[in-house]
């Protein structure tokens, strides 16, 4: 083992495709890297690995672009062995503190997340990825109803299925791989229910033609689902899940051209699992607490993947949802930029020309996917008054409608104060988009002082830079 005593020090938060690509690019250019990640194994969600003790001999059958993963994994191992990268696993980062001479990354160690750890760095790359958005419908809190990404994560990580007969539903490019994965692992996939009509993509022939690999990927999934006799219902939606102790069936209905349920088309499908998702949202908590500007729901970055806070870069889905290949390109650009900037040089754009070209093409591609894969325009009409919207605080739709209607709340923050929706354990991550939709106000990522719950003892014992501790509002800790 070498030491990490010399040279500038980069903290990368997140060991998915973006964080790994950045760590490898920076480490290869002499930057000492701490790769800080909450999981026991690198890979993030896309390359989520099962535990070594499970002894998977063919893990690649649950994955895509496995060769890329092998390159990342082997590169990481070489840099760790060479002492250039420290891979800090099971570290749950809750706050990045900006100081006059650098940053301190605060994490909680281990699954119980109580022991504090602090990592000092000259620069920070936020590669915190995204999480799944799920809009509510009657029965969505029943056990056996899981997020599509969650079903996939449990399969890849734990080699388990939630049941025997699954319906996969919602909207977005994630649904097909999830359905294919569940079917390959032995579940009967009774239906794939997609709200959008992917045929609309044909209108964007020019952009699609520039991405033959993406088209081939979609065609491969479609063929695999056909081979496994999975019925695919496009322009359909799940209007309710039924059951008492767990989901026993779902009601599925067709959508009209305006995104409304077509009366009379409802039918019941028996299942013990519903894997549902309506797209992805970027994780932006750490960036927001640092004072980074957002662009829409993602962290705003420049051509070098720099945020507007000096010393803080962001790459991958925290800057906007666009998949693993885009994350790799952004991570590589960030790593090259960081290596140059930490040595007081300006990076040569020619050094990342290929990655930049991939980045612009994929951003264009995903912007189009975003217009095609959308939840039904009138999804709120299916949300009955007694449907629980905030899963943590058990706030029904009626309370949110009342707050926005009779009580006149005009923004998500006021609805939250009036109803407690978004005040629970998950801090509104699960219900945020739903509350905004039901209250007819704009969805904005809510500012959370810390990225995850922190024991009070840890907070009390954290020696924040004295410059900032005068503030009484925890959201004001850090540079502003």
């Amino acid at each position, binding site marked *: 083992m070498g030491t990490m005593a010399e040279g500038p020090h980069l903290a990368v938060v997140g060991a998915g495709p973006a964080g790994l690509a950045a760590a490898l690019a920076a480490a290869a250019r002499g930057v000492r890297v701490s790769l800080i990640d909450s999981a026991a194994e690198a890979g993030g969600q896309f390359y989520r690995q099962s535990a070594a003790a499970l*002894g998977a*001999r063919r893990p690649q059958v649950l994955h895509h672009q496995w060769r890329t993963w092998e390159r990342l994994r082997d590169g990481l191992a070489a840099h760790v062995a060479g002492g250039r990268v420290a891979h800090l696993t099971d570290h749950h980062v809750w706050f990045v503190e900006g100081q006059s001479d650098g940053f301190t990354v605060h994490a909680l160690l281990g699954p*119980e997340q109580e022991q504090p750890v602090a990592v000092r760095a000259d620069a920070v790359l936020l590669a915190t990825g995204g999480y799944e958005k799920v809009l509510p419908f009657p029965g969505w809190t029943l056990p056996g109803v899981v997020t599509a990404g969650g079903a996939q994560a*449990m399969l890849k990580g734990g080699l388990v*299925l939630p049941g025997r007969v699954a319906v996969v539903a919602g909207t977005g490019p994630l649904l097909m791989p999830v359905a294919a994965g569940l079917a*390959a692992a032995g579940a009967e996939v009774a239906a794939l229910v997609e709200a959008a009509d992917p045929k609309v993509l044909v209108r964007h022939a020019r952009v699609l033609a520039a991405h033959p690999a993406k088209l081939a990927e979609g065609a491969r999934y479609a063929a695999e689902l056909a081979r496994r006799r999975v019925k695919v219902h496009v322009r359909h939606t799940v209007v309710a899940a039924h059951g008492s102790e767990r989901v026993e069936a779902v009601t599925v209905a067709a959508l009209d051209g305006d995104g409304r349920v077509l009366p009379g088309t409802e039918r019941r499908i028996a299942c013990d699992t519903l894997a549902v998702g309506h797209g992805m949202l970027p994780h932006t908590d750490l960036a927001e607490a640092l004072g980074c500007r957002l662009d829409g729901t993602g962290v705003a970055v420049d051509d070098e993947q720099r945020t507007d806070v000096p010393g803080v870069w962001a790459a991958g889905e925290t800057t906007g949802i666009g998949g693993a290949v885009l994350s790799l390109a952004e991570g590589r650009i960030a790593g090259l930029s960081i290596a140059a900037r930490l040595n007081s040089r300006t990076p040569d754009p020619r050094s990342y020309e290929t990655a930049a070209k991939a980045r612009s093409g994929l951003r264009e591609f995903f912007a189009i996917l975003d217009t095609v894969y959308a939840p039904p325009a009138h999804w709120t009409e299916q949300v009955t008054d007694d449907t629980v919207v905030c899963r943590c*605080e058990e706030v029904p739709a009626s309370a949110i409608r009342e707050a926005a209607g009779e009580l006149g709340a005009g923004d998500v923050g006021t609805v939250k104060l009036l109803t407690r929706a978004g005040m629970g354990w998950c801090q509104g991550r*699960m219900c945020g988009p739903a509350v905004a939709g039901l209250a007819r106000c704009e969805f904005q990522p809510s500012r959370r002082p810390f990225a995850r719950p922190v024991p009070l003892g840890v907070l009390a014992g954290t020696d924040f830079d004295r410059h900032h501790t005068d503030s009484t509002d925890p959201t004001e800790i850090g540079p502003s």
Partner: protein
Amino acid sequence: MRAPRTPPELVDARPGPAFSVTFDGRQLTVLPGQTIAAALWAAGITSWRTTRGSGEPRGVFCGIGVCFDCLVTVNGRANQRACLVRAEAGDVIRTQEGTGHRGHHG
């Protein structure tokens, strides 16, 4: 083509020796490396918490540590995210009722 029947068969898993945990007093066999949530799913169990308000059953929702729906009591410690915490031999896992701090359940 013949579909594999289970996820471990699909990836040709050769796990280390299995061990036992208990869930509400019932003995379960767990593969090493699995989280509490994976161990419970493998045993066909999908709910292990009741909500504070209406006492509704809950289990895994997001599966990646974001939603906190899968909270469970492990070895007397409440509010553990079952999807993050690795199962260990001899773990005593209990359904968490409400906050996990109110009353006694066994």
